[in-house]
């Protein structure tokens, strides 16, 4: 397996992720605008995008900052949203066996919904050696990382000058809505989403802005119970 093979595996990853990149441009811009609404300047906004690098949790945390939620609730909510990373990590782990521990830490850092989805599909369709698998994965992950930072920066710089009459805050739930539609794969996931939406809407007055984590957990349980009942 030569350098040439690695380069073409990396390029294959870049090509496969490029349609997805177009989709994260508005997501990154919205994250930047949301950061500016939360009182973040360019350094903190891009710092957050580099250190966290997980859009949905960034947007949710920034929204809670605007609402003056407790720090612990902000962190807890963001981490509940990112629990799904455990699932991606579990699914990718066997494909990355053999990489050094610092190497795996680096690969884990750039793990996103998009890189996971594209890579796991590729590994199933075109089995390849470890170095090629890693190169392909990095080909999906590194362009996303770069575009995410650039879009955050543009968003936070522009954010301060966007008039509120444009209602650009509505772009945030629209981002979540489009991700939600992609996540609805079968009846079980629809039940989980429906239960969670119902609880979050009815429970909006839960103390300390805990409606989101509480609703998420109830939605997940509803999905599990539904599956169990249907299977039995």
């Amino acid at each position, binding site marked *: 397996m030569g350098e040439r093979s690695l380069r073409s595996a990396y390029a294959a990853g870049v090509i496969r992720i490029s349609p997805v990149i*177009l989709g994260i441009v508005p997501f990154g811009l919205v994250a930047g605008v949301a950061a500016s609404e939360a009182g973040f300047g360019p350094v903190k906004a891009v710092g957050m995008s580099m250190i966290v690098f997980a859009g949905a*949790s960034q947007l949710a945390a920034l929204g809670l900052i605007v609402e003056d939620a407790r720090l612990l609730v902000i962190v807890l909510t963001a*981490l509940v949203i990112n*629990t799904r990373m455990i699932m991606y990590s*579990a699914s990718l782990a066997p494909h990355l066996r053999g990489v050094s521990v610092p190497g795996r830490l680096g690969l884990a*850092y750039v793990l996103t919904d998009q890189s996971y989805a594209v890579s796991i599909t590729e590994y199933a369709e075109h089995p390849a050696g470890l170095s090629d698998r890693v190169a392909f994965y990095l080909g999906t992950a590194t362009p996303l990382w770069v575009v995410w930072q650039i879009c955050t920066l543009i968003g936070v710089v522009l954010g301060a000058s966007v008039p509120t009459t444009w209602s650009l805050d*509505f772009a945030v739930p629209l981002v979540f809505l489009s991700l939600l539609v992609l996540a*609805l794969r079968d009846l079980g996931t629809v039940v989980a989403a429906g239960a969670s939406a119902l609880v979050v809407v009815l429970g909006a007055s839960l103390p300390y802005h805990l*409606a989101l984590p509480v609703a998420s957990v109830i939605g997940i349980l509803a999905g599990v119970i539904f599956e169990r009942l249907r299977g039995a």
Partner: protein
Amino acid sequence: MLTDWEAWLVIVSIGAGTLLLRFSFIGLVGRVERVPEAALRVLRFVPSAVLAALTAPALFRPDGPIDLTLGNERLLAGLVAAGVAWWTRNMFFTIGAGMAVLWLLQALT
């Protein structure tokens, strides 16, 4: 709003916690051979449940109280956007359609 110190504390805490979640099984590989089936059955529902909780309040109670009337412009715009998301599976078109319907309804009222 947060002080500088609080903002960085929040950012670093979320970043460190998220890195642990991402590293979890990738880090354990070799020590744990298989992911427990029960864990995967639960985690499977995380994206849909979390994303629904993130979306619903902005559509069903945009100004605080629950509003299921035709006067709720954001709910109508959201329903159109959901349809566009279903058809196109594209975030660009979804945001575009949702914002366009919202601006149209706001211009009409």
